[in-house]
């Protein structure tokens, strides 16, 4: 493998039902930054059936070039034809960086492809940047420049590691949705479109899709929720939980509560967070009108981000909150919901 031959930042433009997934746009946003640091350009790899028309959207979000692999075998995602498509692109075009979304598709496609092209893959990266490897120069070892440095959580999220792939190409990374930012779309932007079809002959690795079943929304167990909007005695009444439910809805989260709320009969026990309830570790935990007694904190202190709203500045919840707001939840929460609605609409 002659590493010098590998140039360009490539992004796997995931599409489902011929709709480009948001993760693809987010990756293009990051790819632009990386390409700038490397003085190279951004290429989107679009794989599917009848997908050529989507190329312009990719251009609007930052792709300089789009490689389209269009074939009826690629209509719905199956590991093998997609792995064949992407590895053929990599082998022909030799990108130095290949980014894939850490989705149910990407976390299957990424490893299969990285193994096929014999390179390293780093999963669920939260930071991607260009730098040196080793980070600090080590006497007797060549320090390589312009390397992709991939930072990711490991050990169940208890360790942060920065990874490099210095001697293999492409440097491959998967990134979860919502981590990177897409750019403001440039209306009317055009990319150079190149069609490429390596040929698809079904072999033993091709599977058959018998049926596709779309999901219906179900009630979420608070232990599975990524965002919890939790209310305590301070919410005041069962009716007032509506303002928390509205906030949860706009964030795609779930409502939970403290023991006081369950004891008062406002909410059922399966929503209770705490020592005698459930232990949760969502990405974001809103503690609203919750004092933060240790019995409650024990059930949520492992949350990634804790936002507390309480009118008592001395409430112990502020000892564990990342962002504590002293104030009246009745004034703040409805306004917060409206503000978030506006933000999310604007981003679309």
């Amino acid at each position, binding site marked *: 493998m002659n590493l010098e031959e590998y140039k360009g930042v490539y992004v796997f433009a995931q599409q489902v039902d011929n709709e480009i997934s948001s993760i693809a746009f987010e990756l293009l946003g990051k790819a632009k930054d990386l390409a700038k640091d490397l003085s190279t350009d951004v290429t989107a790899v679009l794989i599917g059936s009848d997908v050529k028309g989507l190329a312009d959207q990719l251009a609007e979000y930052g792709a300089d070039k789009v490689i389209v692999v269009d074939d009826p075998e690629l209509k*719905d*995602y199956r*590991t*093998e034809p997609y792995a064949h498509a992407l590895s053929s692109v990599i082998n022909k075009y030799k990108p130095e960086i290949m980014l894939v979304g850490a989705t*149910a598709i990407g*976390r*299957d496609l990424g*490893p299969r492809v*990285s*193994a096929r092209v*014999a*390179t*390293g*893959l780093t*999963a*669920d990266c939260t930071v991607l940047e260009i730098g040196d*490897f080793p980070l600090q120069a080590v006497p007797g070892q060549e320090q390589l420049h312009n390397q992709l440095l991939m930072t990711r959580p490991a*050990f*169940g*999220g*208890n*360790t942060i*590691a*920065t*990874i*490099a792939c*210095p001697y293999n190409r492409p440097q491959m990374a998967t990134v979860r949705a919502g981590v990177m930012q897409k750019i403001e779309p440039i209306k009317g932007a055009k990319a150079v479109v190149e069609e490429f079809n390596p040929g698809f002959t079904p072999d033993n*690795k*091709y*599977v*058959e*899709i*018998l*049926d*596709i*079943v*779309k*999901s219906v929304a179900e009630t979420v167990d608070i232990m599975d929720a990524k*965002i919890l909007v939790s209310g305590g005695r301070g919410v005041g009444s069962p009716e007032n939980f509506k303002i928390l439910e509205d906030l949860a809805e706009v*964030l795609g989260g779930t409502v939970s509560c403290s023991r006081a709320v369950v004891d008062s009969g406002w909410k059922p026990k399966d929503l209770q967070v705490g020592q005698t309830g459930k232990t949760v570790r969502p*990405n*974001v935990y809103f503690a609203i009108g919750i004092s933060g007694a240790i019995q409650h904190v024990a059930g949520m*202190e*492992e949350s990634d*981000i*804790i*936002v507390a*709203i309480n009118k008592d500045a001395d409430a112990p919840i502020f*000892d*564990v*909150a*990342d962002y*504590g*707001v*002293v104030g*009246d939840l009745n004034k*703040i929460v409805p*306004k917060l919901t409206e*503000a*978030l609605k506006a933000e999310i609409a604007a981003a679309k």
Partner: protein
Amino acid sequence: MKIVVCIKQVPDTKGGVKFNPDGTLDRGAMLTIMNPDDKAGLEAALRLKDQYGAEVTVVTMGLPKAEEVLREAMAMGADKGILVTDRVLGGADTWATSTTVAGAIRNLEYDLIITGRQAIDGDTAQVGPQISEHLDIPVISYAQDIKVEGDSVIVERQYEDRYHVVKAKMPCLITALSELNEPRYMTPGGIFDAYKKELTVWGRADLKDVDDANLGLKGSPTKIAKASDKVRKGAGEKVTLDPDESVSYIVDKLKVKHVI
């Protein structure tokens, strides 16, 4: 029918981490367990054994201590256990790990290989699909249901907003989600029987068709540039603002943290 199940012994990172007095991670306090996704894969194999009379072999790559998860698997009902352990295999990333495990599996007869989707220490979800690539067999990831029909498997393959019902001819590899099933407990008698059984132990020399250049730390294309442990959460920021400013403050933080 012959099933090979790949399992891994991992620290119980989900069971609640403990911190040292100085706020750093207390790794020594973590118990080791069988990785939850792998346990679900093993349970799926045992159910196929209950239904079709399959032979279930469990394979693990790790330190000698990893023998414990093999015994646990056998106490649950697996027939044979294979421990792949060797100094030169240590420090492996997913490429080197999958190369090693594939090298071990090449010595076995199998119709189906089941692995967990991901391990709770590495969290990569890469080894399963990579093993299938090395062995040149189809892979079906994210299985939420597995059935056997003649010489094929019918699997419900999970995506974010749907699932595909997929049919694949064996031999193939399936990666299991912990939601796939509720794994059975061991039985007291099963435990003592498991320890009476002979365990197969393989080293580098027993791996088939592998290159030393692809094994262990040296054979890993990804290299760790730096790593640090999380420190226990303490108090963060606290602000007292009017309602509109409070809202802006929160929205801002949510944006910075990519929540919205």
